[in-house]
């Protein structure tokens, strides 16, 4: 057998194995295909594309199914890829609802023409105006505040007032922040641009960067750990990360040396963001999807949804969980959260220019 013959022989064997493998694979693939095509042609379940992790939404959806008998199927992924898939699928999509965190993502989905406008008295009543889209494309379902957290032994609450205050000289080498790549900070800076204008916002961000004790962290939790460790004295995080860390410390019977401070309480109010949802343009079950949305804004669901991640409910009639009550009454900024999306690109550019990464 020559060398070439051997290679041809190898190829032939390879081709044989490949054919067998393909047959096996395709028959195994039948499962997924059938489910998906069933859902696409209008099965019997509400399909949700969710950027919130499954372990957070599953208990809520189970409760919905118990209450109404309607089944919910979900696909979880990051907001960006989900939207890309939604856009690419077009009319063949099986998604009825897009559920995501941060108003910016919802604004972008609306801009991409992927959400449909919904008129619902229930939703309008349950969700405050500044936490939903003016045209009814999406509605906030839970609220999170971006708060200041400080070390109780090194900082007095009287030293703090607002986000801009952290740019002052006195906080030099004492500030820790999360990366500007995270959407929560992008929205915060977008709010600053809206409130104070581009120039002042740039000043504030530059001030923050000058005060950084360490390079920005990848997560809020890492920033909190740095404050506990003493590398810095103060940081800005989402309320639920602090709540979670506090709960973990309490579980180990320890007292966390951190305290929360609600900035801008008097005016204009603490910067808040939402997790929310909208019905997709090509939804196969728009009525069922609307029922799910309305149910999620109702009191029972709000309590579940907010408590699963220690967040604030959007429905004003729902009482807070004890942890959140302890922090004091939240006076939230009533700036429409859709602004964050509109200004997000500008805020990213601004933070790049201020060398905040």
């Amino acid at each position, binding site marked *: *057998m020559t060398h070439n013959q051997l290679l041809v022989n190898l190829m032939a064997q390879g081709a044989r*194995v490949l054919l067998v493998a393909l047959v096996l694979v395709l028959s*195994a693939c039948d*499962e997924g295909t059938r489910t998906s095509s069933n859902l696409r042609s209008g099965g019997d379940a509400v399909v949700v594309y969710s950027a919130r992790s499954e372990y957070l939404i599953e208990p809520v959806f189970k409760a919905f199914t118990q209450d109404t008998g309607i089944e919910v199927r979900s696909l*979880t992924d*990051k907001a960006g890829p989900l939207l890309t898939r939604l856009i690419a699928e077009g009319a063949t999509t099986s998604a009825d609802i897009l559920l995501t965190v941060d108003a910016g993502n919802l604004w972008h989905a609306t801009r991409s023409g992927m959400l449909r406008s919904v008129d619902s008295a229930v939703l309008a009543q349950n969700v405050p105006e500044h936490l939903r889209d003016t045209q009814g494309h999406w509605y906030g379902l839970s609220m999170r505040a971006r708060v200041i957290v400080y070390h109780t032994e090194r900082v007095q609450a009287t030293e703090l007032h607002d986000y801009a205050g952290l740019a002052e000289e006195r906080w030099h080498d004492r500030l820790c922040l999360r990366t500007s790549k995270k959407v929560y900070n992008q929205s915060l800076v977008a709010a600053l641009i809206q409130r104070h204008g581009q120039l002042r916002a740039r000043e504030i961000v530059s001030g923050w960067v000058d005060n950084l004790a360490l390079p920005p962290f990848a997560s809020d939790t890492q920033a909190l750990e740095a404050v506990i*460790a003493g590398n810095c004295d103060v940081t800005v995080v989402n309320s639920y990360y602090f709540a979670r860390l506090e709960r973990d410390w309490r579980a180990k019977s320890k007292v966390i040396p951190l305290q929360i401070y609600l900035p801008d309480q008097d005016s204009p109010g603490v910067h808040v963001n939402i997790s929310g949802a909208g019905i997709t343009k090509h939804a196969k079950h728009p009525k069922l999807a609307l029922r799910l949305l309305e149910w999620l804004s109702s009191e029972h669901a709000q309590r579940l949804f907010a408590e699963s991640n220690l967040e604030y409910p959007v429905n004003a009639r729902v009482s807070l969980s004890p942890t959140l009550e302890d922090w004091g009454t939240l006076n939230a900024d009533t700036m429409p959260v859709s602004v964050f999306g509109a200004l997000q690109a500008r805020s990213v550019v601004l933070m790049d220019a201020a060398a905040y990464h």
Partner: protein
Amino acid sequence: MWSTRTRTREASELSLRWSMLGRYLGLGVLGSVVLALVAILLAPSLGVLLAWTDPQVEVWRHLADTRLATLFLNTAFLLLGVLGFTAVLGVGIAWLNTAFVYPGHVWLQYALVLPLAIPVYVLAFAFLGIFGIGGSLQTQLQTWWPTYTQMDMRSPLVIVLVLGLALFPYVYLLVRNAFLSQGVELLEASRTLGLTRYQSFKRAVLPAIRPALAAALVLVAMETLAEFAAVSIFNYDTFTTAIYKTWFGLFNFSAAAQLASVLLLIALLLPASERLLRGRAHYDDTFHGASRIPRPLHGIYAVLAFTVSFSVFALAFLLPLTQLAFWAWEARAHFDGQYMELLIRTGTLAFMVTAVALPLGLIFVSLSRWRGGRAWLTVVRLLSVGYALPGVVLAAGVVSVVGVITPYAHPTVAWLWQFILPGSLALLVLACLSRFMALGLGALESGLSRIRRPLTEAAVLLGSSRIGVMWRVYLPLIAPAIATSALLIFVETMREMPITLLLRPFGWDTLAVRIFEFSTEGEWARAAPPALVLVALGLVPVFLAMRRQYPVRNRKHSNDYVH
């Protein structure tokens, strides 16, 4: 039994017929089938190139004004650092474990492949969980010495270390096989000619494993370029993080895809630059008689050898595993029955992708060797390019290409087309194929180069005219390459995350998906159980594949051979 002369004539007639067919029909049947395959596998990567139809000049200008220089420098530093580190570590450890015998080498040489079972980003966050600020080590130090200031471990060098530890098994595996299949004549000749041990290693041994090392380093380079999750845990800005920021921050997918095409370009240039560096040198391994007998080490050297090997193993595997186990214990209340299902799904996906990628890779590599020539080599290079793309970009590319074609899909193929729509396993397998062909091709190529013409000719001369004997000669030679290739594809698919996330069928979660969902919310403790199960699953292919590697010769049998 046919005479040798008849068989030779048959063989040459066969080759003649194939080449005539190719010449008369232009591409020919073979060519068009291959072209179709290549087009399918390249579609996602090409989907990225489509973005250039809408050049986002503003974004590029903004980047150029602010971060582009830093991005290039950071990416270059990371790339070169990781390449250098894995090359030195991989070659060094491989040599240590093939040329020498020391207490513990029997299990250590296999254990050193285990870091492959841990996803790179899990290694990264486990590392920071131990050594970072607020991590186990420094918090403990602070408890003992309250005045101790915790150090920020997120320096570029540490990132290079972490990525290097995660990726050196690629180099270790491929170079180890090269060492084991290498003849000992060159080395002995150089020693008898008066070179020292070190000199003969540098001039006789190293150059001969260069193809294997090059193949491994190309894989490491592409994986480093595409790595997002691990570098973002350190908040280190590279091209991949810029892609994410442009896509999710600036809401500009076109610009993000254009940035990704830069990575594609680098991925194409990498093997070309290796060839350039090689110049006209040709690394043909002469047919060898005896393989190397490892030298036993004693005393201080044995201890040193064990320490080095074990430290690498501990840092890259044991330590992160311990941290994961610790976290999993904290989160033990959440451990429930769904893990079995997750395990099966993960294993099934990995198995399916391997089952298709392996024969496909074998076909392509044999094809390129049989036909020879630059065109086929380019085909193989192109197929590998998907590995340098961040998984999320590839997934988005797949979805976009399918989305573009779907409206034009003819109703008669609708039944077949539904297999390709997002949410079907077939598309997921296809996307994983696109991404991981590089692994199969790289390992197979470097392994198949073991089969040399002199070997074939010698076998013919010795009267080997039956196919059965042929396979007994060749199978031991190509089995390690196939085993390595299968191992790499399996573990990579098993821990793959972005593509699985986006393209999986409803309710069809894998372990990697579960790890993502917890880690994205910062719940490292709850991400640890699925990570541990994933590592356990990874043990299976490692064990199976390592048994099929070239055997390390035992000193016991040295008397049986003359050399």
